[in-house]
């Protein structure tokens, strides 16, 4: 039996397991990248509008971090600035998860051991995962490019290079995961390592672009060499719609090949199911903290809270800096003027408007915390751990609330943290007295009622349909984030935006706060979570 025997069978199995997740991810990625293009072409329909966007992005530090090294006053530049980062992150995460899921996660489920003893070779799981990553990225590139052939506003060659750069970055992240999957002994650990690498790539590239040089006309940025240290930097340095360079694409492909090869080499140095980083021994006895249902929930939710907490804290500071940094440039920026107009108020100051815009926008992305926290409910049930728990004197309501309640409490803490860091950050960087820092704190906290609705909605779906909560929660999350980001740009029927609870949050501080709306949100959350509890008490607990 060869080392690769059974790769085809495993690939088929992997395709079956991912038959929903992968197509959904690819559709979201393509829809957000290609879908936003017509809107951009419509908003930036004059050279002057394009010029002003590009000039403000190229000259701002924060713009460079999130928009990359902008390359001249073209519509392509704006597209890269608006969606390239998002595309790279989503493809990067997708690719890394494909690898860890079909190698380490399989091992943990015991499937790999079972298959390994039978008819599959040692290299087969990694090979199947790598082929799947190639397929997924290939399909995304083709779908992206194909959608851009329908848009004459965008340079076709540039669109091709843009699609290839995104796919190339996805593959590079697959390579990273092929290594982290061998380093950690736990698939969540392998995921976290890969995500940490993604974060480092982002930060290094961000620094490289912030330190880059502005061209004489103020419309292009030449990245600092630091950007060349980051694969994400390479993806940007393809410079689609401008130079269309091949060399960074080759670097990305080369990195994928090299890292995958290292992954194979490491694979042969460890036993299936164990790993190079052996687990540190744990405690022989449970500490006083690990006692009771809530103690267990705290233990299981802690790392998730911390990881997202970092996101909330950084977001708070970032908003403060962005608000301060962009005050002038935003006012001249068409897209922001439109977004601000959509918030409705005419009397509020510009600063108030932008604060009222930024916090809900961030919140819809940070709502991922609740998704990550609550899909544990179905993890616990399908794994059989819930069965073991409920066979003790643990009450169902108590268990459900140990997770739902701790996620609610966690949300309050996170939004409070974002408010605090935002207020402090704003106080530190701004000289104006126009906005009271406490306003920023409230602008963050005012989102909590909507978050409670989001949480209890997910809890209700879990109570009703168990494991279906996973696809539901992720889809709802993506939907809310999408609505939150683009509701201002597109004019949709009301009900489309009203499916996102975050859309109900009053625009604070630009508008007067309608307490009745906040109270209604809390009431809806209470009712939904109580209904969830009643239903959950009545249903079968299964591992099927």
């Amino acid at each position, binding site marked *: 039996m060869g080392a690769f025997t059974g790769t085809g069978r495993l690939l088929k199995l992997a395709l079956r397991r991912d038959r929903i997740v992968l197509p959904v991810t690819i559709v979201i990625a393509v829809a957000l990248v290609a879908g936003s293009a017509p809107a951009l072409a419509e908003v930036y329909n004059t050279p002057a509008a394009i010029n002003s966007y590009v000039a403000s992005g190229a000259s701002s530090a924060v713009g460079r971090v999130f928009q990359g090294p902008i390359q001249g006053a073209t519509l392509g530049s704006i597209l890269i600035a608006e969606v390239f980062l998002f595309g790279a992150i989503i493809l990067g995460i997708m690719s890394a998860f494909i690898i860890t899921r079909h190698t380490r996660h399989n091992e943990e489920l015991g499937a790999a051991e079972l298959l390994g003893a039978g008819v599959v070779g040692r290299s087969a799981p990694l090979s199947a995962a790598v082929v799947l990553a190639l397929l997924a990225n290939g399909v995304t590139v083709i779908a992206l490019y194909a959608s851009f052939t329908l848009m004459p506003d965008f340079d076709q060659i540039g669109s091709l290079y843009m699609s290839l750069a995104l796919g190339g970055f996805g593959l590079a992240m697959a390579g990273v995961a092929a290594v982290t999957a061998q380093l950690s002994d736990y698939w969540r650990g392998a995921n976290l390592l890969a995500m940490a690498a993604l974060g480092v790539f982002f930060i290094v590239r961000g620094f490289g672009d912030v330190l880059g040089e502005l061209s004489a006309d103020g419309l292009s940025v030449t990245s600092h060499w630091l950007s060349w240290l980051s694969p994400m930097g390479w993806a940007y340095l393809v410079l689609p719609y401008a130079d269309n360079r091949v060399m960074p694409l080759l670097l990305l492909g080369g990195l994928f090949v090299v890292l995958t090869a290292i992954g194979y080499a490491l694979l042969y140095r460890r036993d299936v199911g164990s790993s190079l980083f052996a687990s540190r021994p744990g405690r022989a*006895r449970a500490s006083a903290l690990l006692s009771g249902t809530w103690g267990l929930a705290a233990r299981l939710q802690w790392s998730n809270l911390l990881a997202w907490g970092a996101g909330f804290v950084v977001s708070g500071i970032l908003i403060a800096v962005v608000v301060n940094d962009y005050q002038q440039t935003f006012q001249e920026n068409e897209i922001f003027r439109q977004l601000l107009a959509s918030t409705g108020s005419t009397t509020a100051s510009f600063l108030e408007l932008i604060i009222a815009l930024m916090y809900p926008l961030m919140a819809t992305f940070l709502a991922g915390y609740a998704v990550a926290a609550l899909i544990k409910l179905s993890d616990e049930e399908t794994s059989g*751990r819930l069965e073991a728990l409920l066979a003790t004197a643990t009450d169902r309501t108590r268990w459900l609330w140990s997770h739902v309640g701790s996620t609610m409490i966690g949300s309050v803490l996170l939004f409070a943290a974002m408010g605090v860091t935002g207020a402090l950050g704003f106080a530190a960087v701004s000289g104006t007295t126009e906005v009271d820092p406490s306003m920023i704190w409230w602008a963050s906290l005012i989102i909590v009622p909507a978050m409670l609705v989001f949480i209890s909605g997910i809890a209700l779906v879990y109570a009703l349909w168990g494991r279906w909560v996973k696809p539901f929660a992720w889809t709802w999350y993506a939907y809310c984030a999408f609505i939150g980001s683009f509701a201002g740009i597109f004019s949709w029927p009301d009900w489309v935006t009203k499916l996102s609870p975050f859309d109900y949050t009053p625009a604070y501080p630009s508008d007067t706060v309608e307490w009745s709306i906040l109270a209604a949100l809390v009431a809806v959350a209470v009712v939904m979570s109580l209904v969830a509890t009643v239903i959950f008490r009545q249903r079968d607990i299964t591992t099927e």
Partner: protein
Amino acid sequence: MSREMVLQARGLVKEFGGFRALDGLDLELRRGEVMGFLGPNGSGKSTTIRILLGLLKKSAGDVTLLGEDPWKHAVELHRQLAYVPGDVELWPNLSGGECIDLLGDLRGGLDETRRADLLERFSLDPTKKFRTYSKGNRQKVALVAALASDVDLYILDEPTSGLDPLMEAVFQDYVRQLKADGKTVLLSSHILAEVEALCDRVTIIRDGRTVETGSLADIQQLQQTHFDITTVKSPENLAEMPGVHNYQHSDNTASFQVEPDQLAAVTEAVAALGVTHITSHPPKLEELFLRHYDKQPETATRES
């Protein structure tokens, strides 16, 4: 023997969608008994146990556990019982010791000396993360957590799957100890030797119905006795006698089984043939089980 009934199920039905996993199952367990709960794969043992634990809601029938409805009074009942699932899956990031303490704590406390003793006798290292344990060691974590609890009723669903023979012996010792202490045990198992060694009574189910229940001795008595004989005269005429089954012979050597109520008549007939060699043994438990597990309905629905 009218000891208190610990568990009583009558006509228990459980449907999943349109599929009947339990189809009128009966089960009774009295205080102090160790009951073997047997049946082929998919016959509904785990489903029954999950109903007893209040994890699944019965579709029809009656069930009481310690005199209460296990669905309505799950929490109170669970303070008085310990459960070991067949497929143990606990928290990958917690050590075995943490899992044991946590489950014990949630059940209402552990007996510390027993905990230490069990860890030692099962030679289980409690400091390893749960995800790094082998299959057998995972099973031991659940066993220690359950057996270290001082409760009245132990519900064990294939508790020894994956244990090596040495550990199996340790487990059997412990169950005997529980029996001596007057505890009640429901033991679902596919390991017949284990059932034979530990159980006072067995209940055999198939396709969600009870097909046999009684003490091992009773069941054995009701079964056919096996004979191997060599006789002077040809034993051929035995084949035609009532109550003789599976008759096979070559020359003057024959083997066959005899129903209990025909035993006297058959042994007389055998004696008349002039016996040169005879062995006879009661049915092996294995034969009995295999007969019930076998798909032929007439052997399985035999009333006792």
